[in-house]
């Protein structure tokens, strides 16, 4: 497929918007993924024989927040995202095994253990935050903002405020050398998008 790199996010973003519209019209379902994670965690623990039924969390709407809700639309949606990405990556020859992201390695080194420890902390924060806020970038971001919900616009703004602040602190900017902030970042990035990732 010869789709210019620049138009990809717009083209596939627009298609995703049509897909969301079709999903709501045909199946009555908005996109969302984060609720599946606590459901899967509780499902795993229950399968291991750990009894969670005394938790208030497990009693909400007859276990709707736990693995008792499986199988449901969202679980299959989440599995589908993985399958679709695999099919697309294979078909377009862009599937490649990545052991650690380059940008991560440039800030934290190539130890899997470091990545694991940060991921446990970061993943926990991300999931606690998403469930507390009532959604993630798909549930609040895409679905909620499309509905023009004030809660979703606020959550989305907070996602980016938290993310931008933390990312500045964590990742040394690889493309921007010493001199003037704006102009160097600009030229560094355009080189990078042309050459680096295609």
């Amino acid at each position, binding site marked *: 497929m010869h789709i210019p790199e620049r138009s990809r996010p717009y083209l596939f973003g627009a298609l995703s918007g049509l897909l969301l519209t079709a999903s709501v019209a045909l199946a009555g379902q908005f996109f969302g*993924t984060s609720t599946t994670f606590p459901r899967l965690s509780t499902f795993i623990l229950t399968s291991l024989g750990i009894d969670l039924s005394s938790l208030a969390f497990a009693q909400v709407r007859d276990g709707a927040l736990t693995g008792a809700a499986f199988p449901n639309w969202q679980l299959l949606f989440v599995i589908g995202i993985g399958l679709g990405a695999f099919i697309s990556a294979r078909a377009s020859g862009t599937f490649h095994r990545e052991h650690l992201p380059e940008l991560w390695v440039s800030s934290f080194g190539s130890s899997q253990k470091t990545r694991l420890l940060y991921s446990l902390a970061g*993943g926990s924060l991300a999931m606690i935050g998403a469930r507390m806020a009532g959604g993630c970038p798909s549930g609040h971001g895409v679905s909620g903002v499309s509905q023009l919900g004030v809660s979703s616009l606020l959550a989305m703004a907070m996602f980016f405020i938290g993310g931008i602040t933390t990312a500045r602190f964590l990742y040394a*900017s690889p493309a921007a050398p010493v001199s003037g902030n704006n102009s160097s970042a600009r030229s560094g990035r355009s080189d990078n998008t042309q050459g680096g990732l295609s």
Partner: protein
Amino acid sequence: MILVYGLVTGIFFGIFLQQAQALRFERQVGAMLLKDMTVVKFMLTTIVVASVGIHALQDAGIISFAPRALSLGSQILGGLLFGVGWAIIGYCPGTSIGAIGEGRFHVIWPILGMLLGGIIFALLYPFIQTHIQPLGSFGAISLPQLLGVNHWLVIAALAAGSFFLFRFFERRGL
């Protein structure tokens, strides 16, 4: 049947995310470093198209929906916590699953972290419901309701704002 809809919708969404190159750590963190706006372009385009689509269907009486409940406590504190975690792991829940499909097997660690977070959330749930959710709780309210204007006016403003933002990104090579 609903499960088949879920799977098929997910497969298409996974293809679109992969083709838009949104499943890469560098693209996600790049957006947070304000250096590579691929993910923002993808999300905003999806939002503009979907907001036109679902509001048109609602006006036609085919579907009905109400936005998620507004709680300043939940969305501000939860949103900030999510943002911090998002920057550390470089993925959100949906893109982490897609990234495995693309061969970025290191996302197994963030996924483990998010599963751990799922358990912690389950344990914290009563506390959050009693102490955080009630802070500034206003129920399901949309921006057009808050402003007292027609929803198409807000959608037009959103589309126009996105257009100028995209033009800015493209001129800056972001």
